[in-house]
C-alpha cells in the first residue's frame, strides 16, 4: 500500500529503518525540515490522516496505506490558495529565519479554539530560536494588535526622526520571502531538487573518541569494501595549509591552527576521517568500518589548568609567530594587559569595594538549520559550494587559501539560511566537501546532525571574570579591575577577537579613571568556542552590570541613579583598555539616557498594573524584585567590514538589488529593499533583492557584527542614491530638461510635471545602449554606538527556586528604525535567546572532555512556555553615520538580559548569583545557603 503524499501515491516504498521525514524529502517535499531529527523541535511536523506528528520519529513504514499532508499540500486541504494559518503567519510575520515555520504552521493548523487558548502547552513541541514566540503567538491566534508604526518609543516619527513612508523607511514592510516561507518553498541549503544534483554523494565524518591523541594509522580497507563507499579521506589527503575556521575580513585576525584533517586530534568530536558514499547509510557504515590506531596524549580541560606551567600543551607544536598564537608553550592563544590610571589609587579612594568572580557557561547557538554544505565541480572545472553561511565571500577566500585556488575558480552561494547567531561565521563543513568534490569530481553533501552541532561545532566562550570594583559614597566609580580567563577550546578561531571585543564596550560605557584588565584566551582540549551573538560582550556585561548593582547596593543608591552618574554621555571619551578611544568610533547618536528612562518608567507602570489588578501579592513564599542592566555596542566590527551593492532598473520598471548579505532571519533583505525604495521613491515590493552569491557582486565581508543594515545597507543606499541620480539625468537627457526638474515617483519619473513610466525609460535606455545601474560601497568606518537597556520584574519562590518573570522590558537605541516590526522582532528574539542562556542552557563537558548535553532534550532552549511577552521601546535618535539614521540592532538585545535577570533576583532575594545559568535548582540551593528557605516542618499550609 503506497504512502499517499498530498493526494498523490508515492512511487516508491520506504526503507525498513527510514523515518517519514527523509522519505518525504526524498519524494520532493523539501518543506519538511530537519531541526533535531529527534522529535524535539517540531520543524518536521506533518499530518498523517489529519493527525499532526513529528515525521523524524515516525517510522515511514507505518505511513503505508495512509495519507500524509505536508506544508506543500496544506493549502489544498483548505481549498484555498493559502491555508488560513499560512495567511496569518504571513500577515503577522510570525517568523524570522523561517526554518521552523512549516512545522509551526502544520501544528497550528490542527488547533481548535481551546488549543489556541493554551499555546504554552500546545506549542512547546515547536522550537523557534529567532522570534521569541510573540509574533508566532499573534500569527497562530490571528491577534490584532499590530504594533503601530508611529508613536512614542516606536523608533520612527520621533522628534528627531522622519515620518514613516509606506513601503519605505519606517514602514513595517513584510519580508520579501514571506510567501515562500509559509508555503515551505523557500530554499534553504539542502533544499535542492534531486534532479539538479545528479550523482550526489554523501559525506560522513569519523570523529575522535579522545580528547587529545595522535593518529598513528588509519586502516581504510574495510571501509572501502562497504558497498556504496566511494572514497575515504584522511590527514594524508589534505593540504598542509593551516587556517582558522573563524572568518573575518582579515584572516590574520585569527590564529592558523587548523587543518582540514589533522594527524593530531585535540578534542573529542574532532574530524579524523571522511567517508564519501552513494548514500548516507553507506557513508555511516564506512565510518564504522574505519580502524584507527591512536596514541593518547595528556589533555587539559579547564582554562585554569591550562595556564598552569607544565600543563599539557594543546598546540605546543605550533610556532607562535607564524600561527599568530600568543604563547603556544602556555596554551595562551591571546592576551591583553592594560591599565588606565591607577586602580590602586582608585581603590584607595573607594568607600565601597565589590569583589567577586563571575562565570559564564558554554552556550550553543542552536540555529534550527544545522551546518550543511554541498560542493561540486562544474563542467568548466569551477568549484561550486552551496552552504549554510553568514559569510559566503569569506568562505570563498578561505577555500582559495586552503586549496590554492584562484578566486574566480570558486563560487560560493548561501541559500536562505536557517539561523546563524554567529555560529555560521565559520568554515566547518565547506572545506571537507570541497576537498571531496575536487578529488572525486562529483557533487558531495555534508549535513551535520544535531548531536554533531553540540559536540563538534562551536559554542559561546565560557568566561571566568574576577572582578573588583570600587565606588565613592556619592556614587562615583573609582576603580574597575578585571582578570578575565576565556576558554576557546581546542582551536583558537574567534578566541582573540571575542576576548578583545568582550573587554571593549562593556568597559568603555562607564566613565572611570582607573581601569585595569588582564585577559587570557586559553586553549583546552574541549569543543572549540567561536563567535556567538554578542561576541564576548554578553559575558563581560553579565559581570560588570552585576557589579554595578552591587556597588549601588553597597552605598545604598538606586541602581538607575548609580548608572546615570557613571555611564558615558555624548561626547565623553569611550575608553576600555587603550589610553585613546578607538579613532573611528563616534557618537553618531546617543540614546542611552532615553533607554534608561524608558525602562524605568515601564517598570513603574508594570508595578502599578499588578497592583491595580490585585496580583502583586503572590503569597509569603514568593519574593519579588526588579533589576536592570545596560549595554553598549559599536555598530560595526573594527578593522574593516566591506560591502558592495549593485542596483539596476529592469525592463519591467522594477529594480534589482544585488547585495552580499545572507538572509538568516536577520531581516536585512527587507531593510535593503526599504533603503533602496526610499532613495528611489518607490516601495520595497518593487525592489527585488538577490544576495549571498559570490558571483553577484565583488565582495561583502558578511553578516556578522550586526553589519547587515549599517554596512551592507549603507552600500545599497549609496547605490540606490546614485541610481536615482542616473535615472533622473537620463530622463532629463531624453526630455531635454534639467535633472532637477525630474522627480522619481513610484513607477514613474515626473519630468517637468509629466509622469513618464519607468518601463518607458528603461526601454529608451536600452535602445540608447545605456545601462541604468549603479554601484555602492561602504567600508564600515566610521562607526557609531548603539545601546540597549533591559529591565525585569521577577518573583522567586524561596521554597522551590521557581522563578517567574512578571515583566520584561527592553529599550533600544537603534537610531531611526527602518522597519519597526522587524526590529522589534530582533529584540524579542534576542531577549528569548538570552533568557535561555541566563536560566537554562549549558553545554556540559565531563571529566573526559565529552559533551554530555548532546541532544535538545538535554539542552533546553526556551519554548513558548518559557518566554514572557516583552515590552519593547525605542529611543528617539537619528544617527549621523548609519543609513538614513539607522543603527545596528541584532546582537545587542541579547547583551543586557542575563545581568538584568540576575539583578532582579538579587533585588528580590538579596542573593547574588554570579554563575550562569541561574537555574531553579541553583536558585533554591543559593537561597538555602543564605538561610532564606522556609522551615519545611511548618510548611504544610501557606
Amino acid at each position: 500500500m503506497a504512502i499517499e503524499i498530498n493526494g498523490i501515491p508515492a512511487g516508491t516504498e520506504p526503507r525498513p529503518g527510514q523515518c517519514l521525514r527523509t522519505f518525504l524529502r526524498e519524494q520532493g517535499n523539501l518543506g519538511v525540515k530537519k531541526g533535531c531529527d529527534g522529535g524535539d523541535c517540531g520543524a518536521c511536523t506533518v499530518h498523517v490522516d489529519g493527525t499532526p506528528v513529528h515525521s523524524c520519529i515516525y517510522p515511514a513504514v507505518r505511513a503505508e496505506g495512509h495519507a500524509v499532508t505536508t506544508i506543500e499540500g496544506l493549502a489544498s486541504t483548505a481549498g484555498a490558495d493559502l491555508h488560513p494559518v499560512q495567511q496569518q503567519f504571513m500577515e503577522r510575520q510570525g517568523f524570522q529565519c523561517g526554518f521552523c515555520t512549516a512545522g509551526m504552521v502544520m501544528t497550528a493548523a490542527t488547533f481548535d479554539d481551546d488549543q489556541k487558548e493554551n499555546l504554552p502547552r500546545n506549542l512547546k513541541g515547536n522550537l523557534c530560536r529567532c522570534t521569541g514566540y510573540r509574533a508566532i503567538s499573534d500569527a497562530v491566534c490571528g491577534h490584532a494588535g499590530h504594533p503601530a508604526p508611529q508613536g512614542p518609543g516606536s523608533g520612527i516619527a520621533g522628534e528627531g526622526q522622519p515620518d514613516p513612508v509606506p513601503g519605505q523607511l519606517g514602514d513595517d514592510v513584510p519580508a520579501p520571502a514571506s510567501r515562500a516561507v509559509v508555503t515551505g518553498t523557500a530554499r534553504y541549503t539542502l533544499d535542492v531538487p534531486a534532479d539538479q544534483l545528479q550523482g550526489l554523494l554523501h559525506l560522513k565524518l569519523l570523529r575522535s573518541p579522545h580528547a587529545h591523541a595522535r593518529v598513528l594509522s588509519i586502516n581504510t580497507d574495510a571501509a572501502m569494501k562497504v558497498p556504496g563507499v566511494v572514497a575515504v579521506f584522511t590527514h594524508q589527503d589534505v593540504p598542509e595549509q593551516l587556517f582558522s575556521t573563524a572568518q573575518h575580513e582579515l584572516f590574520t585576525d585569527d590564529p592558523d591552527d587548523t587543518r582540514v584533517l589533522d594527524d593530531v586530534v585535540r578534542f573529542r568530536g574532532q574530524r579524523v576521517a571522511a567517508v564519501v558514499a552513494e548514500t548516507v547509510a553507506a557513508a555511516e557504515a564506512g565510518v564504522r568500518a574505519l580502524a584507527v590506531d591512536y596514541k593518547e596524549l595528556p589533555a587539559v580541560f579547564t582554562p585554569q589548568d591550562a595556564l598552569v606551567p607544565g600543563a599539557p600543551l594543546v598546540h605546543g607544536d605550533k610556532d607562535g609567530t607564524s600561527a599568530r598564537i600568543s604563547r603556544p608553550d602556555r596554551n595562551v592563544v591571546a592576551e591583553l594587559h592594560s591599565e588606565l590610571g591607577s586602580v590602586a589609587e582608585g581603590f584607595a579612594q573607594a568607600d565601597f569595594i565589590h569583589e567577586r568572580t563571575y562565570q559564564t557557561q558554554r552556550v550553543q547557538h542552536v540555529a534550527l538549520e544545522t551546518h550543511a554544505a554541498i560542493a561540486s565541480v562544474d563542467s568548466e572545472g569551477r568549484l561550486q559550494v552551496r552552504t549554510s553561511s553568514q559569510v559566503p565571500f569569506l568562505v570563498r577566500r578561505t577555500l582559495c587559501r586552503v586549496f590554492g585556488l584562484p578566486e574566480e575558480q570558486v563560487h560560493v552561494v548561501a541559500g536562505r539560511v536557517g539561523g546563524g547567531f554567529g555560529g555560521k561565521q565559520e568554515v566547518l563543513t565547506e572545506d571537507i566537501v570541497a576537498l571531496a568534490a575536487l578529488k572525486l569530481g562529483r557533487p558531495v553533501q555534508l549535513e551535520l546532525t544535531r548531536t554533531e552541532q553540540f559536540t563538534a561545532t562551536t559554542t559561546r566562550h565560557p568566561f571566568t571574570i574576577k572582578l573588583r570594583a570600587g565606588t565613592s559614597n556619592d556614587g562615583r566609580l573609582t576603580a574597575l579591575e578585571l582578570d578575565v580567563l576565556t576558554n576557546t577550546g581546542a582551536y583558537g578561531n574567534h578566541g582573540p577577537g571575542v576576548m578583545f571585543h568582550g573587554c571593549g564596550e562593556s568597559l568603555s560605557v562607564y566613565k572611570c579613571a582607573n581601569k585595569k584588565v588582564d585577559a587570557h584566551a586559553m586553549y583546552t582540549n574541549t569543543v572549540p568556542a567561536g563567535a556567538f551573538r554578542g561576541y564576548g560582550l554578553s559575558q563581560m556585561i553579565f559581570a560588570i552590570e552585576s557589579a554595578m548593582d552591587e556597588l549601588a547596593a553597597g552605598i545604598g543608591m538606586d541602581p538607575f541613579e548609580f548608572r546615570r552618574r557613571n555611564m558615558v554621555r555624548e561626547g565623553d571619551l569611550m575608553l576600555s583598555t587603550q589610553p585613546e578611544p578607538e579613532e573611528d568610533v563616534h557618537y553618531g547618536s546617543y540614546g542611552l539616557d532615553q533607554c534608561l528612562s524608558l525602562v524605568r518608567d515601564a517598570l513603574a507602570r508594570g508595578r502599578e498594573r499588578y497592583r491595580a489588578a490585585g496580583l502583586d501579592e503572590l503569597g509569603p513564599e514568593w519574593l519579588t524584585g526588579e533589576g536592570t542592566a545596560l549595554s553598549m555596542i559599536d555598530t560595526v566590527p573594527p578593522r574593516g567590514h566591506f560591502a558592495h551593492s549593485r542596483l539596476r532598473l529592469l525592463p519591467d520598471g522594477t529594480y534589482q538589488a544585488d547585495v552580499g548579505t545572507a538572509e538568516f532571519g536577520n531581516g536585512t533583505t527587507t531593510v535593503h529593499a526599504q533603503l533602496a525604495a526610499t532613495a528611489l521613491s518607490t516601495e520595497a515590493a518593487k525592489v527585488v533583492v538577490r544576495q549571498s552569491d559570490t558571483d553577484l557582486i565583488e565582495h561583502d565581508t558578511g553578516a556578522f557584527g550586526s553589519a547587515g543594515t549599517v554596512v551592507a545597507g549603507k552600500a545599497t543606499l549609496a547605490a540606490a542614491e546614485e541610481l536615482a541620480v542616473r535615472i533622473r539625468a537620463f530622463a532629463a537627457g531624453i526630455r531635454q530638461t534639467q535633472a532637477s526638474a525630474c522627480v522619481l515617483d513610484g513607477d514613474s519619473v515626473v519630468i517637468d510635471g509629466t509622469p513618464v513610466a519607468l518601463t518607458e525609460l528603461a526601454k529608451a535606455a536600452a535602445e540608447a545602449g545605456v545601462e541604468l545601474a549603479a554601484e555602492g560601497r561602504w567600508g564600515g568606518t566610521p562607526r557609531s554606538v548603539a545601546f540597549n537597556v533591559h529591565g525585569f520584574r521577577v518573583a522567586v519562590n524561596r521554597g522551590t527556586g521557581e522563578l517567574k518573570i512578571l515583566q520584561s522590558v527592553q529599550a533600544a537605541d537603534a537610531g531611526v528604525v527602518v522597519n519597526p516590526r522587524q526590529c522589534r522582532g530582533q529584540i524579542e528574539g534576542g531577549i528569548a535567546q538570552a533568557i535561555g542562556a541566563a536560566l537554562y542552557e549549558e553545554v556540559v563537558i565531563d571529566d573526559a572532555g565529552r559533551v554530555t548535553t548532546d541532544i535538545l532534550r538535554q539542552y533546553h532552549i526556551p519554548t513558548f512556555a518559557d518566554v514572557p511577552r516583552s515590552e519593547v521601546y525605542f529611543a528617539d535618535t537619528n544617527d549621523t553615520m548609519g543609513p538614513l539614521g539607522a543603527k545596528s540592532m541584532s546582537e545587542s538585545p541579547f547583551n543586557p538580559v542575563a545581568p538584568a535577570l540576575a539583578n532582579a533576583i538579587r533585588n528580590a532575594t538579596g542573593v547574588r548569583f554570579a554563575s550562569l545559568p541561574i537555574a531553579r535548582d541553583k536558585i533554591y540551593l543559593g537561597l538555602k545557603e543564605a538561610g532564606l528557605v522556609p522551615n519545611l516542618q511548618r510548611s504544610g499550609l501557606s
Partner: protein
Amino acid sequence: MDMNTIESVVPTTDPGQWRDGDAWLAGGTVLFSYGSFAFGPQPLKRLLDLGSAGWTPVTVTDAGIELAATCTVAELYKLPGLPAAVDRSWPGLDLVRPCCDSFVASFKVWNMSTVGGNLCTSLPAGPIISLCAGLDGTATILGPGGSTRSVPVTEFVTGDATNCLAPGELLRSIHLPASALASRVAFRRLSLSNLGRSGVLLIGRLDGGTSFVLIVTAATKRPVQLRFDALPDTDALARALDEAVPTDLYHNDIHGLPAWRRDMTYRLAEEIRAELAAPEGAPGLRSSGDFWPPSGRGLHAQTLNARQEGA
C-alpha cells in the same frame, strides 16, 4: 532519524522470534529519536513491529483498567473521558492527564508514543512510570515459549534507563487495580523550566480513606514507594523518606541537582500529606509546581502584559 542499520521490519508479537540486534517497535518515538545505536555500541538490525498487534488499548472492568503496552499516550489522555470510566467514581483517574502533561514531549508525539514505550525506556522522568507506579500498576511481561510473568511497576524500573526485562521479553500490558483507582490522590511536580522535563514528581494516595501511599519518581533513579497504615505526621513522613531514599538514589543530571531534588521531594511529600490530611477540596493548601489541581490551568503565562504605548 533514519535507522540506517535496520535490515527488516518484522510484524510480530512473539518473543520467540526475538534475536540479538532486534528491538520491539511500538510507537517508534524513542527508537527513531536515538537511532540505530539506541541500546549501545551494537547497532540494531531488525525492528519487531507491534503495529499490527491489535491489542485493545484500554479495557475498563470492575477490576480496574488494563492498558495495553501499545496504548498511545493520546489514547491514555482520553481515558478519563471514556464512558466506561466516567461512570465509575475513580478519583485516581485525576492523575492521568497531569501525568501526560508531564511529558516534555509535545502532544503531537503522544499520537505515536506508547505507555509501554515510556515504561521500557525507564527514564527517571518517565511520567507513565509515575502514573502506573502511583496507581499500584502491575506489568504483564511475555517471554519466549508463551511464558508470562507479572511484576509491580515499582519493580519493573530498576534504575536510570534500566528495567527488569530480559533480552527479548515483551511488555504486554499494565493493570491498574480498581482499589487504587478508587482512592483519593494528590500530585505534585517541579521542573527546571516551564512545562519542562520533570525534576521531581510525587504522587500520593489515600487508600480506603486511611492508609497512605507515596510514590517518588523523577527525583530518584527509580520509583520509590512508601506505604503507611495511616497518614503519618510531618516528621514521620520525613523520617520515612530518610530511610526509603538514600542520598545516592537521587538522580543527578542536567534536569536537577540531587540536593534540590532531595529537598523538593520532602517538600512535595509534605504538601501531598497535607492535602490528603485535609478534607477534599479544602482551601488554602499549598500546591507547588504545575498541573495540579487537575482542572486548573498551569501557573505559567501569568505575565500581565502591557499594552504598549503607541500600540
